[in-house]
């Protein structure tokens, strides 16, 4: 039973991070029908930027959490600028092109960013300094650290703020109108280019936060970390129904739980034949199941319209 609770907690932490990244995929898809495969790399750049800042400040007398916070505050604008630039340089010139062109471009941008990451930060794994309190608390026989609580709470707050932004503000309304029909939104006075830029910038800010969370939680960062994380978050977005923001949140948390529970029990279930290192298999197994049985996702309904 304690394994079960422990894996639920781990799954919620992981799922919160997936949800933040999945939102970036789903918002961009919702507004322009593009799967931005470079989004995972924005997470990586966010993680490594914060890491560099944190390493720079780690020797000073500043308390650990403050250092991490400064690292986060530095990573967010860097990722926002990166997201803005990616859209401007790589996707905007292809706005009128067939859908395959921006998709392939996205993969290209992803590879370029990985190489840039490698050039700046090298091929090595970087240890994320343990600046945050990691003394575990005990709940129902399971352990949870303050950092994990913080990750879940912060992710929930950010998502609540995003829901408010999209549903109750002028910019959010323009985003929804653009998602429904960019031509008509334009004729009604919405600057569609500006709204698309804002969408990329917001998504990239979420990616920066997720990048810091994931590297703090697993105490490691690496130039290649964005690839698999991005694919999983994309899976979460598809699971929830790509284009649907509530779906990305639900899909992220569900995928986190599925992976954690799967990793926790796979050894027992296969008599030790497969170990928890097969964790990654679950995400893609889920992706296949969703694509076969419910391609529009759990909360999606509008996929056919776009396809």
């Amino acid at each position, binding site marked *: 039973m304690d394994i079960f609770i422990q894996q639920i907690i781990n799954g919620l932490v992981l799922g919160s991070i997936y949800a933040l990244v999945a939102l970036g995929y789903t918002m961009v898809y919702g507004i322009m029908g593009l799967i931005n495969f470079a989004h995972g790399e924005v997470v990586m750049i966010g993680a490594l930027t914060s890491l560099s800042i944190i390493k720079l400040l780690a020797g000073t007398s500043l308390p650990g959490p403050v250092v991490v916070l400064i690292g986060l505050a530095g990573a967010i604008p860097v990722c926002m600028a990166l997201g803005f630039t990616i859209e401007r340089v790589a996707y905007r010139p292809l706005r009128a092109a067939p859908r395959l062109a921006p998709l392939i471009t996205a993969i290209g941008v992803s590879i370029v960013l990985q190489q840039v990451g490698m050039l700046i930060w090298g091929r090595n794994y970087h240890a994320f300094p343990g600046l945050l309190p990691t003394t575990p608390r005990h709940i129902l026989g399971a352990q949870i650290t303050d950092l994990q609580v913080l990750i879940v709470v912060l992710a929930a707050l950010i998502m609540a*703020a995003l829901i408010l*932004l999209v549903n*109750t*503000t*002028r*910019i*959010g*309304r*323009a985003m*929804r*109108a653009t998602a*429904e*029909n960019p*031509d*008509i*939104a*334009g*004729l*009604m*006075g*919405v*600057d*569609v*280019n500006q709204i698309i830029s*804002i969408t990329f*910038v*917001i998504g990239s800010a979420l990616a920066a936060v997720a990048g810091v969370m994931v590297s703090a939680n697993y105490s490691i960062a690496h130039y290649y970390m964005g690839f698999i994380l991005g694919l999983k978050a994309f899976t979460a977005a598809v699971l929830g129904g790509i284009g649907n923001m509530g779906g990305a949140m639900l899909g992220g948390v569900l995928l986190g739980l599925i992976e954690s529970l799967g990793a926790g029990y796979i050894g027992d279930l296969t008599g030790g034949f497969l170990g928890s290192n097969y964790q990654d298999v679950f995400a893609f197994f889920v992706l296949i199941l969703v694509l076969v049985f419910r391609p529009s996702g759990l909360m999606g309904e509008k996929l056919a319209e776009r396809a």
Partner: protein
Amino acid sequence: MGVLLRAQGVSKSFGGVQALREISLSIDQGEIYGLIGPNGAGKTTFFNALTGLYSCDRGEFEFDGKPLKVRAPHEVARAGIARTFQNIRLFANMTALENVMVGRHLRTRAGVIGAVLRDRATRAEEQAIEVRARELLDYVGIAGRANDLARHLAYGDQRRLEIARALATEPRLLALDEPAAGMNATETASLRDLIEALRRDGITILLIEHDVRLVMGLCDRVAVLDYGEKIAEDVPEKVQKDAKVIEAYLGGSLA
């Protein structure tokens, strides 16, 4: 009364089809200008060229004395031109109120920072947007449906909602593309009252319409398009008697 919109030699072809051939016309401030013609005559193409959905091959538009150069659709709205669509194009999954509020986007300012901080000015603006949107829904007569999703509105109400959304951009020229299409006699009569009210409130109207009685009753001047060419332009009484117009509508053999 000055000229509000002037089109000069506007031409557009799709492949081998000449959809618009050297169309020149001018619409005066405050008038209701009708654009009629058989199906496929180029009326909607003219609208789309005016509002920047298509670029024209040749020719230009001048709005309020200044050349209308459109690089993005929202610049048309900013210049003061708003339109409705022959096949209704609402934001189907937003409420009626939100549809109109989108139309206020152009005339308001709040950005992302305001949205995050929710400072006093942002909240006051949001309040003002909603008040104005409700007034417009009331003006077109669907205030009671404010919180319904646009796709759940009755057909006639959807047409009214499109007009309210267009009005929210504070246009000087309102282009209505077949607003009476699919309406019954009662709905058409009340649409007519609405258009009359718009004129009284100083909005210049460009009206594409199939319903000849509606056009002849409402418009100050009418232009007739046939095969992409303007074949007549005059007050309704004269246009109705024009030989070329009768031929275009009834076919050569009867004329």
